[in-house]
C-alpha cells in the first residue's frame, strides 16, 4: 500500500481532476473490493456491478472526502453499503437458485466459482460438496449485517475495531454481530464437521 503521505497526494490530485491519480487509487484497492464482492455475493455478475457502482460513487463523491478517516475506511464504507443493499435485496427475493437453466442444460453456478482441484476421491468429493452446501446455507442464514461483519473479519482479516468504524458502529456491536454469526454457524455446521 502506498504510504499515507503518498496516498494523500494521490487523493488530492484526484480531487483536482487528475485521471491518472484516480486510476492509481482505484488500482491500489480494486482487487480487494472485487474479492469482497465476489465472496459475499458469489456471482461474477454481481461482483462486477458492485465494482462499477463502488468506484463510480467514489469518483462522484471524492471531492467530499475530507480526510476525517482513512481513505481505506471511507472506500470500504461505500463498498459495504452497496454490498449490504445487494444482500438485503437478495433476502427479499429469497435467494436466487444456484442452479440455473442454460441452453446446454442445468448449470450449477457455484461449481463455476467454487473450489478448484481435482476430485481424486469421489466419496471425499461428495462429502466436500455437502459441506460446502451446508456452509452456503449457514451463510445465507445470517442477516446481511452479520454476513458483512463475518466477511470482513474472517475473510478480509480486518480487526473488529476497524469493522465497527467502517460500518458506523462500535467495536462492541461488531463483536456481538460476529458472535451471533459464529453461533448460527455452530448450530448448522456443528453436527457435520
Amino acid at each position: 500500500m502506498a504510504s499515507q503521505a503518498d496516498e494523500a497526494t494521490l487523493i488530492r490530485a484526484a480531487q483536482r481532476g487528475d485521471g491518472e491519480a484516480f486510476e492509481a487509487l482505484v488500482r491500489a484497492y480494486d482487487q480487494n473490493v472485487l474479492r469482497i464482492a465476489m465472496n459475499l455475493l458469489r456471482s461474477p455478475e454481481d461482483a462486477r456491478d458492485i465494482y462499477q457502482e463502488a468506484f463510480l460513487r467514489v469518483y462522484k463523491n471524492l471531492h467530499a472526502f475530507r480526510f476525517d478517516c482513512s481513505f481505506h475506511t471511507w472506500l470500504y464504507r461505500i463498498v459495504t453499503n452497496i454490498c449490504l443493499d445487494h444482500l438485503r435485496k437478495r433476502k427479499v427475493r429469497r435467494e436466487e437458485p444456484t442452479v440455473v437453466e442454460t441452453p446446454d442444460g442445468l448449470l450449477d453456478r457455484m461449481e463455476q466459482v467454487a473450489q478448484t482441484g481435482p476430485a481424486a476421491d469421489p466419496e471425499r468429493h461428495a462429502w466436500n460438496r455437502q459441506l460446502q452446501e451446508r456452509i452456503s446455507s449457514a451463510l445465507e442464514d445470517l442477516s446481511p449485517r452479520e454476513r458483512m461483519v463475518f466477511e470482513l473479519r474472517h475473510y478480509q482479516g480486518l480487526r473488529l475495531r476497524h469493522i465497527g468504524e467502517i460500518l458506523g458502529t462500535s467495536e462492541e456491536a461488531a463483536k456481538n454481530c460476529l458472535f451471533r454469526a459464529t453461533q448460527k454457524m455452530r448450530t448448522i455446521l456443528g453436527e457435520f464437521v
Partner: protein
Amino acid sequence: MKCEEVVEAIPLYLYGEVSPATEEAIEHHVAGCAACAKEFKLRKAIHSALDAHEVSVPAGLLQECRGELSRREMTPRRGWLHDFLHDGFNLRIPLGAMALIALGYFAARVTGPATDGPNQASLENAAVSSAIRAIETEGSGNIRISLDEIHRREVTGRLDDGNIQRLLLEAARQESNPGVRVESMGVLKECAQSSPVRAALLNAAAHDPDAGVRLKALEGLKAFAGDPAVRQTLAQVLLHDDNPHVRIETIDVLTSQRDDAMVGILQDVFQKEDNHYVRNKVRNALEGMHATLGTF
C-alpha cells in the same frame, strides 16, 4: 474461567480478538477440561472449513472490471460537457452560436487587437506541460517569462525491443505514479527471464511503496519461485511487508516449490503474524510440509 465463559469466548479467541490474559485463561482451561477441549476442537474445525469456502475471483474479471470502468467515467471533468454534447442536441446549435459570440467578445477584451510582431507570445498547449521559472518586466513594457517545457512523445515497439524494455524499466522506477508502475510491471512480467527485468521485479516486490505494484511484481516472479535469489528476497517480503494481501501472495509463490529451508521462516511468521487469514495460510503450508507450527 467457567466452562460457559470459555465456550462463549472461543470464537473470539480463534479470531485473536480477546486480551492476552483471556487467551491464556482459555488455553489453561481447555487443557484441563475435556468438554471444553471437545468444543474448542469443533469450533476450530468449523473455522477451518469456512476458510476453504472462500471464492476466488475468476481469472480476467479484474481486468474486465477495470476496462469497463475506464470506458465509463475515468476521464475526469467530462460530466456536464459530455452530457451536453451527447444529449443536448436540440439546444446545441443556438447555444453554440451564443458561446462563440461570447468567446469572441471576451477574447477581444482580454487580448486586444492581434499583432504580427516578433514578440507576440505563442504557446501551443497540446502535449506540453510547463513550469514557470521566472517573470521579468522589461522597460519596453514586455513581460519576459522563463519556463521549462516537457513535451509528450509516443513510442511504439514490441516487448523484445531494447528501447521499449529500457523505458518500461524506467517507468518501473517512476516514483510519482503508482498507476504507471503497475502497468509497467504488468508488461515486464512477460519477459522476466531477462536479468534486469527480474531485478526490477524483485526490487519492486521488496521496496515499492504501493501494494498494487508489489502484487503485480509478485505475479511476474511466480515462474521463478525456484530461483534462490528470488526466494531469498521473497522470504524477506513475507517477514516484513505490512500488507496482508502481499504476504498471502508471497506465501503462494514460496510454497509453490517444496523447500524445507522455508520451514523456519514460516514458523517465524506464524508466531508473529496477527492476520488470521495469513496465519491460516502459513499453518496450512507448514502442515503440508509436515512441520510443527512452533520452533519449541
